[in-house]
């Protein structure tokens, strides 16, 4: 059975890649998303056959709630408001990656298999959390909920401090065998705040580039969590999105005649390296 699951994950991953490939050309673009959609359904169905999976009721309920909310909002939204919806959905994906990391850390599963795996869980978690809060700010800005570019006093120093703190706590979490729940919580809170602080100073016009960057980051986070869970579909799809998204970010920045560093100024570079 486990072989069948892995095989369907692999097929799903191939469908994703082919789908993205088709989306890259105007003629085949519409069919591309359908291919990727089939892959997604396949992978989700296969997951229900995972060995000793419990809380199935909870899983189904959560899927129904999440899907219904996204379906309704996705159908209703105006065409011109699309970018912020992408940001929002992307943030949800980042949050999910962060949640996986949190579950694995709280339960001690991640650390039980050595600090290599634990550090992947920690890195994926921090990227996911940053992507979640950052995307939410991007959404709020594009939606007009938040008009002004705001930056905290000592903005760069504060961001650098948070990156250092994250690095330190993350290292401790990854190496200690039984990480305390308190530090895990602090860790994720700092990551969320960092995401907010990183995004607030960036103006609305640059947001698409930033969203694309968070998209790439979420992809990376998914890939890291895929390694933690030993899940081929997540590793492949996450890495493809990470690579494709990074390049897309650069292309978009270039199309706007801005360098990426120019868009992201202030302290962002430091956290990028941590990623």
């Amino acid at each position, binding site marked *: 059975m486990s072989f069948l699951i892995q095989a369907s994950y692999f097929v799903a991953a191939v469908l*994703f*890649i082919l789908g993205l490939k088709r*989306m*890259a050309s*105007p003629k085949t*673009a*519409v069919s591309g*998303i*359908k291919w990727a959609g089939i892959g*997604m359904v396949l992978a*989700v169905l296969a997951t*229900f056959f*995972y060995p*000793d999976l*419990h*809380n199935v009721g909870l899983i189904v*309920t*959560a*899927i*129904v*709630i*999440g*899907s219904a909310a996204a379906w309704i*909002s*996705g*159908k209703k939204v105006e065409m011109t408001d699309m970018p912020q*919806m*992408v940001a929002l*959905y*992307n943030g*949800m*994906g980042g*949050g*999910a*990656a962060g*949640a*996986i990391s949190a*579950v694995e850390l*709280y*339960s001690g*599963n991640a650390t039980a298999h050595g600090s290599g795996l634990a550090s992947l869980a920690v890195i994926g978690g921090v990227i996911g959390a940053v992507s979640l809060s950052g995307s939410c700010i991007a959404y709020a800005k594009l939606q007009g909920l938040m008009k002004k570019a705001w930056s905290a006093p000592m903005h760069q120093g504060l961001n650098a401090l948070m990156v250092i703190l994250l690095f330190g706590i993350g290292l401790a979490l990854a190496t200690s065998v039984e990480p305390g729940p308190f530090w895990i919580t602090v860790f994720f809170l700092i990551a969320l705040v960092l995401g907010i602080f990183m995004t607030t100073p960036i103006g609305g016009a640059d947001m698409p580039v930033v969203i694309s960057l968070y*998209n790439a980051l*979420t*992809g990376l*986070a*998914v890939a890291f969590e*895929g390694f933690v869970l030993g899940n081929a*579909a997540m590793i492949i*799809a*996450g890495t*493809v*999105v990470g*690579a*494709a*998204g990074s*390049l*897309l970010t650069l*292309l*978009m920045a270039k*199309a706007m005649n801005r360098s990426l560093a120019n868009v992201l100024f202030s302290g962002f570079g430091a956290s990028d390296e941590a990623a």
Partner: protein
Amino acid sequence: MLAAFTGYEIIGKVPAILHTPLMSGSNFVHGIVLVGAMVALGHADTILEQVIGFVGVALAAGNAVGGYVVTERMLEMFKSSKD
């Protein structure tokens, strides 16, 4: 590594007009995080883990479904205006 090269290869020569749908499409693809969230929730034991896992699955499902709906709408519009 191979997957990373694939990503590079795919995006390398894309017309600028397809940037946004493609971003949305790759946003949908990382909705695969749903699978991982399901596994995490499926193996969660304590209440805390279950709550976080539940939120994770709901968020991931939102990512996947929302990403799909939005991308499809974008591409549909693209088709009708271009053809």
